[in-house]
């Protein structure tokens, strides 16, 4: 493949999108008449010049260098890389949804507001927590928003709680969000199963404790057996329990964060409810909280009322003691819509089956690999598990990273490796419910093949079939090259090519 950028293939005079000038009109002023020269650019931006055909060939070919759920098995632990139903992608583009301005009046937005209201209700029901805000842009912002909500609650109660606690296996966003929100971070010690050491936790709890953040099921793929006691401990000191919802795919309709003691949680709509991952985003990070926190939620919340004739009327409102907005506009509506479509599509039974099938698939996979990739969490997991490549490293010098890279050669995306740090040579695998048994069988067989591959050098030096192999990250960081620019040399084509080199 070629790594030439669009700046390299730019040719002066090529065009794709053009706009006509406004027709001559005596009352039309030129830009120079409308705006003083001091504000006007002296030259055009040095953007590349391309025909639509150049653009299409460039990006279509680039896209095929990716592995993706649509093309490959992608057992990336903690990321829930499940299939994204195609209807949902298309429905999100329905005229009348995709082209609504965020400041339209409620009167002209009833269909959209009804959808968002129903989504709030559904997310509350799934969480077992009554108040929902759809506002946060992603899971990390959901965490941050919930922590600010908690802070506002404590402040309102006149309490000065400065500390947020989390297990060592917590996602990096937990401490990062807590720090951003102005809290002091306390991390518990490592644990190979990711389960909380009750005594250690107890030692940290006092009237400075604001929030205990816990992912449950945890990052090792285990449901925290002491979650009830942990919640009670937090509540006993006046603190709150935050449930990181990254692993909700394991427990939908089986148990609810609100029922096992959580006071606040966020959803990752792009993990659990098939907003696609989009090569990194966008997500949506709705939060659900207990009733006593509802007044502090960010604005806006969707409300339903009835008018005189008894018709349902939807509107937006600001909670009484709202922390305010954490972003502009309502939220990542395009992603929320996909979540809504997904929940409607599955209904109560289908949603429970999601978790049942996800857990079944994970346990089946675990059963097929545990003899050569031991799983510290034990023989039963939730929707994912963390295996360790330590024995393979010891016996054959093949590391988790080596296995991950070698998998790419066989057309399977790597699992998450070296996270959480609690497990040495961690390989975190989450097959999700949308993969078939035959895919899992093939994957398990591949892992075995790689772990026992005759020539370990083939594994060390993998991947061999991908467009590139083990980029030099140190070099990248030492002298960062972070952009391309137009070549300085001239070009040999006419300065304005004919219409045909553009698409339209």
């Amino acid at each position, binding site marked *: 493949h070629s790594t030439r950028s669009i700046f390299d293939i730019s040719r002066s005079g090529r065009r794709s999108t053009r706009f006509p000038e406004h027709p001559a009109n005596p009352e039309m002023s030129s830009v120079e008449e409308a705006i003083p020269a001091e504000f006007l*650019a002296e030259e055009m931006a040095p953007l590349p010049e391309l025909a639509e055909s150049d653009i299409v060939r460039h990006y279509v070919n680039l896209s095929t260098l990716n592995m993706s759920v649509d093309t490959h098995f992608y057992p990336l632990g903690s990321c829930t890389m499940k299939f994204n139903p195609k209807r949902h992608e298309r429905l999100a583009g329905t005229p009348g949804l995709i082209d609504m301005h965020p400041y339209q009046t409620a009167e002209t937005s009833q269909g*959209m507001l009804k959808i968002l209201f129903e989504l709030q209700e559904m997310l509350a029901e799934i969480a077992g927590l009554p108040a929902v805000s759809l506002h946060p842009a992603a899971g990390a912002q959901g965490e941050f928003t919930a922590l600010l909500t908690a802070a506002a609650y404590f402040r309102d109660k006149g309490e000065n709680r400065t500390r947020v606690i989390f297990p060592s296996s917590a996602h990096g966003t937990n401490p990062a969000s807590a720090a951003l929100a102005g809290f002091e971070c306390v991390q518990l010690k490592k644990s190979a199963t990711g389960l909380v050491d009750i005594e250690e936790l107890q030692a940290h709890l006092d009237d400075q404790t604001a929030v205990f953040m816990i992912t449950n099921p945890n990052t090792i793929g285990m449901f925290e057996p002491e979650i009830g006691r942990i919640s009670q401990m937090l509540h006993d000191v006046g603190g709150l329990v935050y449930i990181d919802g990254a692993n909700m795919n394991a427990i939908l309709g089986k148990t609810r964060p609100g029922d096992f003691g959580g006071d606040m949680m966020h959803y990752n709509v792009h993990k659990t409810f098939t907003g696609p991952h989009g090569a*990194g985003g966008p997500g949506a990070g709705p939060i659900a909280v207990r009733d006593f926190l509802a007044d502090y939620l960010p604005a806006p919340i969707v409300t339903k009322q009835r008018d005189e004739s008894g018709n349902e009327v939807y509107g937006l409102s600001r909670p009484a003691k709202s922390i305010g907005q954490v972003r502009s506009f309502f939220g990542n509506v395009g992603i929320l819509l996909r979540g809504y479509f997904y929940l409607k599509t599955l209904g109560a039974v289908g949603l429970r089956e999601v978790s049942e099938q996800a857990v079944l698939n994970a346990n089946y996979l675990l059963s097929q690999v545990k003899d050569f990739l031991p799983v510290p969490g034990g023989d039963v997991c939730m929707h994912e598990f963390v295996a360790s490549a330590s024995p393979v490293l010891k016996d054959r010098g093949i590391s988790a990273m080596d296995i991950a890279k070698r998998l790419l050669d066989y057309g399977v995306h790597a699992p998450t490796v070296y996270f959480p740090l609690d497990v040495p040579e961690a390989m975190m695998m989450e097959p999700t419910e949308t993969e078939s048994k035959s895919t899992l069988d093939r994957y398990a067989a591949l892992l075995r093949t790689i772990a026992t591959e005759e020539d370990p050098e083939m594994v060390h030096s993998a991947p061999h079939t991908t467009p590139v192999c083990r980029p030099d990250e140190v070099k990248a960081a030492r002298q960062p090259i972070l952009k391309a620019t137009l070549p300085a040399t001239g070009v040999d084509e006419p300065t304005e090519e004919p219409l045909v080199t553009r*698409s339209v």
Partner: protein
Amino acid sequence: MLDAIGVSSIDELFNTIPENFRLGRDLNLGDHVSEMELTAQIQQLARQNASSSSHVCLMGGGAYDHFIPAVVDEIASRGEYYTAYTPYQAEASQGSLQTFFEFQSLICALTGMDVANASLYEGGTSVSEAAFMAMRVTRRHKKVVVLESVHPEYRQTLQTYLQNLETELVVVPTPSGTVDLKQVAAVMDKETACLIVQQPNFFGSLEQAAELTRMAKEAGALSIVSVDPLSLGVLKRPGTYGADIVVAEGQGLGIPLQFGGPFLGILACDEKYVRRMPGRLIGKTTDSKGEDCYVLNLQAREQHIRRDKATSNICTNQGLMAIRATVYLSSMGPKGMQEAGKRSCQGAHYLVNQLKANGWKAPFAAPYFKECVLTPPASVSEVVTQAQEGGFLVGPVLDRFTDAFCEETQEQLQNSLLLAVTEKRTLEELDQLVGVLAS
């Protein structure tokens, strides 16, 4: 499969959930619906909304009905892009990585800055992230100065971000629509981390951005300029007047309105601040065979490595929106950006002049680009209804934001709204709107 696991039922796998926490009933979500039924239901709900399909949209306030070339949808709807994960695994992600690298490059070309990240959530959080970054760079954590003419929701976001911290947020009022430089000078001091300016500002007006940038520098603070990317085919690129950090709402760059999101947060800055930047960065390097390739760079700034010491908590970003913007800017090129900017600007001035001839007033005198605050001779809410019935969406009406402005500014905004004209609007449409509003 159950045999292989050694259990007799799927339910057995959930035995690790303490019994008292198991949900002994169906969730109250209703029955599942088929693809066919869902499609019919959603189309019916969509018909209950107005939109830029059903109406001609002249709404402004930070989200605009700009034209989206079809090639943007063509590329962004490829499963290889939209169903891929964050490109941590470089060998399996060269497509995304190179595309984001090109995104960074295009944003630099457009803004005139040295380096851009691979996206933040949207305009408001970009302003906040920039302020936090400025505090890190300047090591001044006590004071942030923002003009009142910055989008009220960006300011609100910033305020929320700061609300559990000690930092003071100083808002410089702009009752005449643009800021009085003297008032800025009065608040800038040695404790000020940054000065935040929006150009064109929330009212559509042009601030003395170059001068404001200079004033920030003088105070040892960073200048943060929030721009409308669609203005940069016509207006000065902030890199050319020395802005330290440029942020933007990238929605205009090929991203649909979708009721407010997902949009695209842009952040670009001077090279020397690169290691203090929030968000993902893609770099070019070589692989084990010496071939050029792309990789996530400077990850040590990020939450998955640095945890509570990270430059931001952002993880999921707006990758697919950045891909859209990349294809959009490739398709526009320098001339397309210029043409779109000119058409928008000319259309806006034409419309404003026509409305003024019909008795409308513009409370602010400063030059504007594509958007303007206007006060109709009738009640503004009636005007909105009238426009809507005539097939036009206008606004927002500015009383929506009253809490966000000081009294003096509020007075100027009484009974007024924003109108924005993009390159999509034809003279016929503008004339028709004038007619609808005159009747």
